[in-house]
């Protein structure tokens, strides 16, 4: 049997290179053959072949929901993929503590908050609270860290004020609500404010949330970003190693 060609990888249904993919979406087009044809045309514009509308449902109010299977001829060269990953190695709690006690004489001061109108504290709490996440202890359990958690709905202004008062080394920001990309504007605004206040260089700025990634965080001017399923030790490990490298 032919082997996968890593330079020309296609989607796979049940046979190499069959390019099978599934799409689903709604169109503001009344239910009927025309809506199905519109769906097929949309797929063809994506370069897809032989689009088959398997399910079309009349949503009413001039809308149709469609589920389409099609063949994608597109190929990806997997030998050329570049992914922005955090470059610090993942350490366990003990290794982190050891590194910190070797490098620092005082505790690293970490200030966390969920900012803007966002009131989802579970994520930041999972990172900060002793209890931690998925059996991995939170930052409060680290001997080398001094942690303060401001909770939810903290404005960027207040966050920076508190950072000054707490003499923070690191600011951790959580953003969970992402509708209309409000997390991006909120986060970018924080960095702008920090620049304006002249404190951007003095602090490590780290953000997290289910729709964030290291790559997005860098784009927004942060030092690091953590996505869904992050473990506290990943965050602690990053902080200690990055500050140690300074």
């Amino acid at each position, binding site marked *: 049997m032919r082997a996968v060609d890593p330079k020309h990888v296609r989607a796979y249904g049940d046979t190499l290179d069959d390019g099978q993919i599934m799409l*689903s*979406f*709604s169109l503001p087009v009344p239910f009927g053959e025309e809506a199905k044809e519109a769906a097929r045309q949309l797929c063809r514009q994506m370069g897809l072949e032989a689009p088959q509308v398997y399910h079309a*449902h009349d*949503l*009413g*109010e001039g*809308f149709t*929901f469609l589920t389409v299977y099609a063949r994608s001829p597109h190929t990806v060269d997997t030998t050329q993929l570049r992914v922005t990953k955090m470059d610090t190695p993942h350490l366990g709690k003990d290794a982190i503590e050891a590194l910190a006690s070797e490098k620092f004489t005082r505790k690293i001061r970490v200030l966390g908050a969920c900012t*803007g*109108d*966002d*009131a989802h*504290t*579970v994520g930041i*709490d999972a990172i900060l609270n002793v209890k931690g996440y998925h059996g991995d202890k939170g930052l409060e359990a680290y001997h080398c860290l001094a942690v303060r958690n401001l*909770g*939810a*709905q903290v404005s960027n202004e207040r966050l920076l004020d508190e950072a000054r008062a707490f003499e923070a080394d690191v600011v951790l920001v959580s953003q969970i*609500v*992402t*509708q*209309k990309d*409000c997390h991006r504007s909120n986060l970018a605004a924080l960095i702008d404010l920090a620049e304006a206040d002249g404190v951007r260089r003095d602090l490590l700025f780290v953000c997290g949330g*289910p729709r964030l990634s290291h790559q997005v965080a860098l784009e927004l001017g942060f030092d690091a970003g953590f996505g*869904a399923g992050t473990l506290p030790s990943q965050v602690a490990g990053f902080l200690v190693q990055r500050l140690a490298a300074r």
Partner: protein
Amino acid sequence: MAGLVATFAPTPPGFGCPPLDLDAPTVARARQLAQHIAADVQARLADQSTVAIERTVLRLFGVTGATADGEPLANRLVAQLHAADLLAGGVAQPFCQALVHTGLTAQALAQAVADGRVDLRTHAGARTGQAQAVGAQLAQAGVARITARRQERQALIGRLGQGVQPLKYVIVASGNIHEDVIQARVAARQGADVIAVIRSTGQSLLDYVPEGETTEGFGGTFATQANFALMRRALDDVGAELGRYIRLCNYASGLCMPEIAAMGALERLDMMLNDALYGILFRDINMQRTLCDQRVSRRISALAGLIINTGEDNYLTTADAVDAAHTVVASTLINEALARQAGLQTDQLGLGHAMEIDPLRPDALLLEIAHAALIRHLFPGAPLKYMPPTKHMTGNIWRGHVQDALFNFVGVLTGQGIQLLGMMTEAMHTPHIHDRYLALESAQLVFTGAMGLGSELRVEPGGKLEARARQVLDEALVLLDEIAREGLMTSLSRGHFAEIARSPTGGRGLDGVFAKAASYWDPTADAITQALIAHGQLS
């Protein structure tokens, strides 16, 4: 007028939760403790009012609208008095006094005050007989408007009919009321019985209700009277077409509880998320403020024939689903007692519950059934609102869709009243137009197939299911006992609920609380009390 209240869909025959052998004395004792806790809270707060309550008085008098810079007139007037420390007697007295003095309508007077043409502060003092009469008359008119909307609902349901329980409840949350309207109408066509318009993230902490139709919310759309009216009309239209009354739900919650309750009552909303405990725990709203506000909001809802939904369905998003299941039960019992004291009837008690059990945990379904059946048996006849496990939803929409289906199965098996439908995209975004359709279609499938099942199955006597229900009830009793001893407000500062601790003087909105003077007067409260007594909702 009993039975007119929420006009909730009757349970179809042969459709019910399998019986559960609970210990009757334990149930009775738990309910007794809850009543004690509720009475104690009311007694402690009896002498306080809040800026929100006073603004509500004005709204019931007929005051609407905002200043050019968007400050609602009700806010401007109350804030002015509050700043001058002239609010202790209530807003009604100076306002009615000024009405008598100027001969203006309520709305015109409010506008005049906002424009600086009349100064309410100069009218503060003792109330005259004339002012008292004007106030009583305006309050009566407010009550009459609400009662009319309630009768309107009654008539519409009588004419159109309504969905079968569990009612299918879905949210719209585009942030733009016009998109919300489209999505709500689509949802109704796909089988939704209740449309909940989710609010923008920030609104619960706003100490005013925005004005007008809004198109810019995050994670939801602002609750405004204009938005209420727009959506009400849209649902009435589509409901008439479908031959099914479609219920509208919003949030009388946050810093403007009673005001929003009044607006909802005036715009014929049918349900309101309404829970001070939720605001305290999840929005860090001051407990004195919001417990005062809640009482008034619930009395208005009682009058309006609205169903309230409490927020216990949120507790286990922060606490452990199995260890803390009893906190949900304890809290619903307290919330029931608080609600009944405000005049809400059984068929208005949409107590919220959700168990957030990790669906991958062995016996997840067994535990879910045990908990759901327990709550069902504790509140017979109440239109319980049952919420799916949201925190265990991930980007895996495929498994999520099945999780929601299993949850829907538990809902129909245990005879819940209102089923908040989970969406497979829960972990990703507020629902897309077809997410709702898919959720409704799946729920309909499960409900149709399993409708009669609850009556055909029995719980194994002495088995795990029964044991779990009894255990949770026992744990709830212990907690209620503790709360009854220390008082609800102290308890809240100990973090019993949702693993969150709040102090009686912490949180937002305490500055809006004030001690009532001996002369405090609120003719709307009097009118509402009279009406509730007349309706047999209070004695």
